[in-house]
């Protein structure tokens, strides 16, 4: 039904934008009510509740309410939580944080620079995924006084990079509970102690996690508004949608229910459905090429494949309009580092076929020019459907794509260790700054077997140098220009197709107030959330 889908997505998007614009105005008029229990839906269980050993959304959604970072991101920019000020020296090798005074851990002990120094050196640098690359040049964290932390680096660290990484990768842990213990087996990894608005109460495996109000919260006696938060693990997405409708859970985030249910509930007056609150959690759907395959090493073939993809159609049918075409490795949520002044590949199957002819891949007697084996990442609806869309689109231009089914470890090994694939599609999350987890897709030199890195057999020395220079450029303006150049080069060469950028989607009951009021709301502390019921 092409006519229906043509007006459905824009009107849906338009309606959501209008609702989004109205919403802040409504919320501001109501006075927060104290009390109540908020129920979150968790589709999978992370099992470790320590944001300083595990950097993942599933962990933040729970621990973000209990353990706070130094800096958080709001719609007004980066705001200090456990830090109040930050500055860098001229040479960029010393970054100083002033820490908030009068903050106590949930067990009553004071929060000081010792906690920050300990966590940075033992966890952020050594154990926390993505953080260990970020902090690899961290030499020491000095404490000239209990409320000043001085980070000393052996190479220049751009302040904007560190600040952008702090909301996810900057959670201090209580030194007095971790020092001298086996860090990975410490019982507080599943019973976190933090400074946040909610105190951990109970973790019942396979069922739920409960946290209750911290009566001594540093923001003041009036916060948090909620009495209690419960996170319920419901692995079946249809059952979760039923739970939302029955009023047993208030919010399902990170696309926790199926897209069909999301679309259905977006028309239900009891729910707010949208991407607001996920601006810090944007991901790309990609097509990754194994450059060891002779055909895919030819830039004309890769460009032909890009021309063979009707991105707008995919956005309408798979993401139901909650997405935008990608313009390179850095998504539009990348702030000043983003540019869309790049080469664009329009959907043009004839041009695709011409390019393939030019590259020497003419159709055989069965109409097939090229055969490819494709590995889809098994993370969710988008990746599966996008893989099928890719296979169908390629058939139109004479490329036969075989989809291999695999679970998570098989996929990771198949692509990143054994390189047993021709094309693959993944879900690449952008973590606030390109240097955190995005450039590693393009830079050569990652050891074999490192997941989510350049294991594609692609090496471009010019690009490598640009990436390294940008990672240590201190001037934010100059740095942004460097990333624009990288964006342009990647769109010229297309070593990977960053096809579609999409934030996550939440379905929230309208009873929840002040929801999704920061760009990383689901990972943040919910100190000002309240329930109207």
């Amino acid at each position: 039904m092409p006519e229906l889908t043509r007006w459905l997505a824009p009107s849906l998007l338009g309606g959501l934008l209008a609702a989004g614009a109205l919403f802040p105005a409504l919320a501001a008029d109501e006075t927060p009510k104290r009390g109540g229990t908020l129920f979150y839906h968790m589709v999978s269980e992370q099992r470790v509740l320590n944001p300083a050993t595990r950097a993942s959304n599933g962990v933040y959604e729970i621990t973000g309410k209990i353990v706070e970072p130094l800096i958080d991101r709001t719609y007004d920019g980066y705001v200090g939580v456990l830090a109040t000020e930050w500055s860098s020296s001229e040479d960029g090798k010393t970054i100083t944080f002033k820490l908030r005074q009068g903050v106590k851990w949930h067990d009553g002990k004071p929060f000081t620079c010792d906690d920050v120094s300990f966590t940075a050196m033992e966890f952020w640098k050594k154990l926390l995924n993505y953080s260990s690359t970020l902090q690899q040049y961290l030499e020491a964290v000095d404490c000239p006084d209990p409320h000043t932390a001085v980070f000393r680096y052996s190479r220049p660290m751009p302040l904007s990079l560190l600040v952008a990484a702090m909301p996810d990768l900057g959670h201090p842990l209580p030194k007095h509970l971790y020092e001298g213990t086996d860090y990975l087996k410490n019982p507080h990894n599943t019973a976190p102690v933090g400074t946040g608005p909610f105190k951990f109460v109970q973790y019942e495996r396979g069922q739920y996690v409960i946290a209750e109000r911290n009566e001594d919260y540093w923001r003041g006696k009036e916060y948090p508004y909620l009495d209690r938060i419960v996170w319920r693990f419901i692995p079946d997405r249809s059952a979760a949608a039923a739970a939302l409708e029955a009023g047993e859970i208030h919010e399902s985030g990170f696309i926790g229910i199926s897209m069909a249910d999301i679309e259905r509930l977006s028309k239900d007056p009891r729910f707010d459905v949208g991407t607001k609150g996920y601006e810090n959690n944007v991901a790309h759907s990609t097509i990754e090429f194994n450059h060891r395959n002779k055909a895919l090493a030819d830039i004309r073939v890769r460009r032909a494949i890009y021309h063979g993809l009707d991105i707008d159609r995919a956005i309408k049918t798979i993401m139901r309009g909650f997405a935008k075409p990608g313009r390179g490795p850095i998504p539009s949520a990348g702030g000043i580092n983003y540019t869309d002044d790049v080469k664009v590949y329009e959907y043009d199957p004839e041009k695709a076929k011409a390019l393939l002819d030019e590259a020497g891949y003419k159709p055989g007697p069965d109409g097939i020019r090229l055969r490819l084996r494709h590995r889809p990442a098994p993370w969710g609806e988008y990746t599966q459907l996008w893989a099928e869309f890719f296979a169908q689109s390629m058939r139109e231009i004479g490329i036969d794509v075989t989809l291999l089914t695999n679970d998570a470890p098989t996929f990771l090994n198949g692509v990143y260790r054994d390189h047993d694939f021709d094309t693959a599609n993944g879900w690449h999350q952008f973590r606030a700054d390109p240097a955190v987890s995005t450039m590693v897709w393009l830079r050569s030199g990652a050891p074999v077997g490192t997941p989510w890195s350049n294991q594609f057999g692609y090496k471009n020395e010019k690009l490598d140098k640009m990436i390294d220079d940008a990672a240590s450029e201190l001037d934010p303006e100059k740095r942004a220009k460097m990333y624009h150049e990288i964006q342009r080069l990647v769109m010229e060469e297309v070593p990977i197709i960053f096809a579609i950028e999409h934030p996550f989607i939440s379905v929230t009951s309208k009873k929840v107030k002040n929801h999704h009021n920061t760009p990383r709301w689901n990972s943040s502390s919910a100190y000002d959330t309240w329930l109207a019921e």
Partner: protein
Amino acid sequence: MLNYLLKRIVQVVPVVLIIMIGTFLLLKLAPGDTVDALVGDMGGADPQVIARLRAEYGLDQPVWVQLLVYMKKLVQFDFGWSFVHEQPVATVLMSRLGPTLLLMLSSLFFAVSIGSVLGMIAARKAYSLTDNVISTLGLIFYATPSFFLGLMMIVLFSVKLGWLPVGGIQTIPSFYSGWDYVIDVAEHLILPTASLSLIYLALYMRLMRTSVLEVADLDYVRTARAKGAGGARLMIHHIARNALLPVITLLGVQFSTILGGSVVIETVFALPGLGQLAYQAVIQRDMNVLMGLVFLSSVLVIVVNFLIDLIYASLDSRIELS
């Protein structure tokens, strides 16, 4: 009796060992290990972190070394540590055993009891309208996939009518204790048990029906009827005991299969049971939990089969425990 029990245990030990070694090697054949699955969950990691984790979990050793280490621990009844759950395996298994056993036993109980009664009724009125209705209903429930039945029941009873909870094993946060807690859990188990038992009910119904029709033709039944035994007494006192034998056999076999079938129901209803645990253990390549589960399942199946043998011997005096 004790001799018999001991003999059975001795016979069973090599079987269990073979199953466990086989499972271990099979899982090792699957590409990827615990750390890969963990990294997949986390959304990425750097090579240093990954290498560190592998060393920590002993996964950088060759396969036969890992097997030996595991077997050595097993003979001391040390089931090891689950890196996925961050708990000893024994704790993980024990905490999940309850809901699964409860679900399985209640489903089988209802399936067997209601199925047998319906089978008896159907046989009594063989080829009549009642018989056809019962058989057709049985067929419908048997053919319905368990996840579909479960979800449809949720939509009807939880969302539309609001009578029963959507999922989980208890209301949270709940501070129930004693009888309130029991009633709360029972309420949460109504839908899952109904879904699971409706499917198996059909099997027992058909089997009982056929069995009763067969037994009803035997000489001793004709004699009893000639002696004046009426409908109900004939059925319950004379026929049922013998007709039940095939049903009991199926029950023994089904116990093992229902453990696998519970994965779907446990997932749909978010019950923290062994079925879901097994599925997760494979996806996460949690070797220790999977091995522990296989051991536990083997023990359960053996115990159940032993009990079935005892029931046989008591039902049918021609059968003797040797």
